[in-house]
């Protein structure tokens, strides 16, 4: 029975609002811990009744960090509803937008959200263990990181008119071609930014070298993994099939995103607004899996760009070719993907068709009343699933968001670190920061992920003017 409880609220340096409770027994030993996602936004519900072609603009308002992922997943779902294939130039340009978002999102996370822990230390004074402390400690590195993020944001702005919530992808393609002027401006900066990403890898590898034991055992546990692959089994972030592997790296499943409901189910716990997806065949909780950078690099066979592939080979050596289990290695995987995204931008810009004016397919179309599409968002696999009525109005929307996939893993990571570092209620701040850092490894985006449909766990308490509980309704 729980004798005492430690609460960490709010969890810092993540997107959204969460708290952690650590339950101790009489002897002060950690019994259980929970990551509670308390916010609820319910965007799926108010999409109902909107014309399907508005969805790429509406759904990206879920998030200010990864709006591009929702924008593109939505546009792909709308392609399916229209029954059209976007022209090749549009596919290239959508992927370019997508890679730009990976650059800004991954760059920001490593240098500004995770960086303070790794570069200043888990036990550093909380007053300096933040982005400002990092800037003071190494202004030149911080300035490069700001430039890296700006590079990604500027590509998004060049394509979609705005750095946040761009207006670019439309059902059937994109609404504007790329000019040669913009292509050349982007190209001119790639080499510099790859240098920044490689500097980040060097910093992280140096940290791992000095903290090898901690890196290997920190929130390290076996799980299944999920991520998208291309036809050759290589990393693919915009399009492909979804692969699930077991803790030993053996393939359990590979399927088209439209079949996701055959393979993925969701579990609900009463203490969180965030649902728990799992691999349906194995059931809950055995079928839980991890997504995002670590999940992806644990399921792929290779990366189709040279520098990222070289780093991927080193990543694979960590566990002698088996999946890497330590949560801190999310940061390494994230940086490898950052290199990939930058190299992929270079590849995309070298495609002659990227300047084509043919950017949208309007017909002929074979419309459908259902559109399902997926891509890999920075934090993991993102599925948009829309059903429309005969007038093209959204009858039902289901969004399975990356952070949701990782819900089980984040809880497992929190518990693992709490058990390792928390002994009794009088615990040093640095130890609690380690518990938070376990969540940060997953770079959760909670605003994105709390859009559940159906019966959410909810408790409503009616309190009278005298302060007494008049009624309680729970489901």
């Amino acid at each position, binding site marked *: 029975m729980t004798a005492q409880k430690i609460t960490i609220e709010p969890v810092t340096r993540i997107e959204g609002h969460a708290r952690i409770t650590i339950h101790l027994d009489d002897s002060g030993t950690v019994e259980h811990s929970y990551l509670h996602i308390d916010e609820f936004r319910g965007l799926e519900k108010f999409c109902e009744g909107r014309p399907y072609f508005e969805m790429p603009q509406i759904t990206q308002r879920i998030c200010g960090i990864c709006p591009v992922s929702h924008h593109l997943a939505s546009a792909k779902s709308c392609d399916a509803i229209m029954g059209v294939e976007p022209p090749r130039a549009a596919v290239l340009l959508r992927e370019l937008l997508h890679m730009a978002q990976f650059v800004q999102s991954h760059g920001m996370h490593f240098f*500004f959200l995770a960086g303070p822990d790794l570069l200043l230390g888990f036990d550093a004074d909380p007053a300096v263990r933040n982005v400002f402390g990092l800037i003071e400690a190494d202004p030149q590195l911080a300035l490069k990181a700001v430039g890296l993020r700006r590079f990604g944001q500027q590509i998004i702005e060049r394509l979609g008119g705005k750095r946040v919530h761009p207006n670019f992808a439309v059902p059937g393609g994109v609404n504007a071609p790329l000019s040669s002027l913009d292509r050349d401006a982007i190209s001119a900066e790639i080499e510099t930014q790859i240098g920044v990403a490689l500097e980040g890898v060097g910093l992280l590898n140096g940290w791992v070298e000095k903290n090898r034991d901690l890196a290997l055992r920190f929130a390290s546990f076996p799980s299944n993994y999920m991520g998208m692959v291309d036809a050759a089994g290589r990393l693919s972030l915009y399009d492909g099939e979804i692969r699930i592997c077991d803790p030993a790296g053996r393939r359990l499943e590979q399927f088209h995103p439209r079949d996701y409901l055959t393979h993925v189910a969701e579990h609900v716990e009463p203490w969180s607004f965030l649902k728990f997806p799992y691999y349906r065949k194995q059931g809950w909780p055995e079928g839980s899996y991890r997504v995002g950078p670590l999940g992806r690099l644990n399921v792929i066979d290779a990366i189709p760009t040279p520098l990222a592939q070289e780093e991927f080979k080193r990543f694979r050596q960590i566990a002698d070719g088996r999946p890497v289990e330590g949560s801190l290695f999310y940061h390494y995987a994230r940086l490898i993907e950052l290199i990939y995204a930058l190299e992929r931008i270079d590849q995309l810009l070298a495609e002659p068709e990227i300047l084509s004016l043919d950017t949208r397919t309007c017909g002929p179309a074979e419309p459908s009343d259902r559109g399902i599409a997926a891509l890999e968002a920075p934090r993991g696999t993102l599925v948009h699933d829309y059903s429309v009525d005969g007038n093209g109005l959204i009858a039902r929307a289901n969004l399975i968001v990356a952070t949701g996939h990782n819900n089980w893993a984040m809880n497992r990571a929190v518990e693992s670190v709490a058990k390792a570092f928390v002994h009794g209620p009088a615990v040093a701040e640095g130890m609690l920061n380690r518990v938070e850092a376990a969540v940060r490894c997953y770079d959760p985006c909670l605003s994105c992920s709390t859009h559940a449909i159906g019966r959410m766990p909810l408790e409503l308490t009616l309190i009278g003017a005298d302060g007494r509980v008049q009624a309680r309704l729970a489901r």
Partner: protein
Amino acid sequence: MTRPVVMGLGNPDRGDDGIAFHVVNRLRRRLGSRPLGDGETGLDEPRANAALLFVRQLVPELVLDVGGCSRLIFVDAHVPAEPRAIVCAHIRPESRPASGLTHALPPEGFLWLLQAFAGRAPESFLVSVRGEHFDFTRRLSPASAALVDPAAGVILNLIRPNDDHRSFTNHPREV
């Protein structure tokens, strides 16, 4: 970059909160530049004598755009609780921010970033203009619209070369 930079801040979709957009465009017309269109910031323009920019909010990336400028003038709206119509304040980098970045970065925090990255922050002013209505409209209230021209005049004085600004103290003053 040795030119002065004027950076308007606000949301033109929220009535008088977007007054800086109108002030910046008034300055651009006076100085012979094309006014900014909807969604334009002026950040990508060829270099002119003065950079006349408008952004919805300050973000760290902007330090790369304004680093090294000779003088930085922020333009913003203030709420009616401040009775003065136009306030010009000489501002300095805030002391070290206590926590990490939030969704809001005030001009003084932005100056702290500039100082941290470049070793110095330029002499800076905040010119704020009183807003009356902050509803969902792209139109300015008549009272605030009448302040656009005077505010532009204040800023012109600040960016005029070789001007003497000794009259500006650390205390905000009404203009």
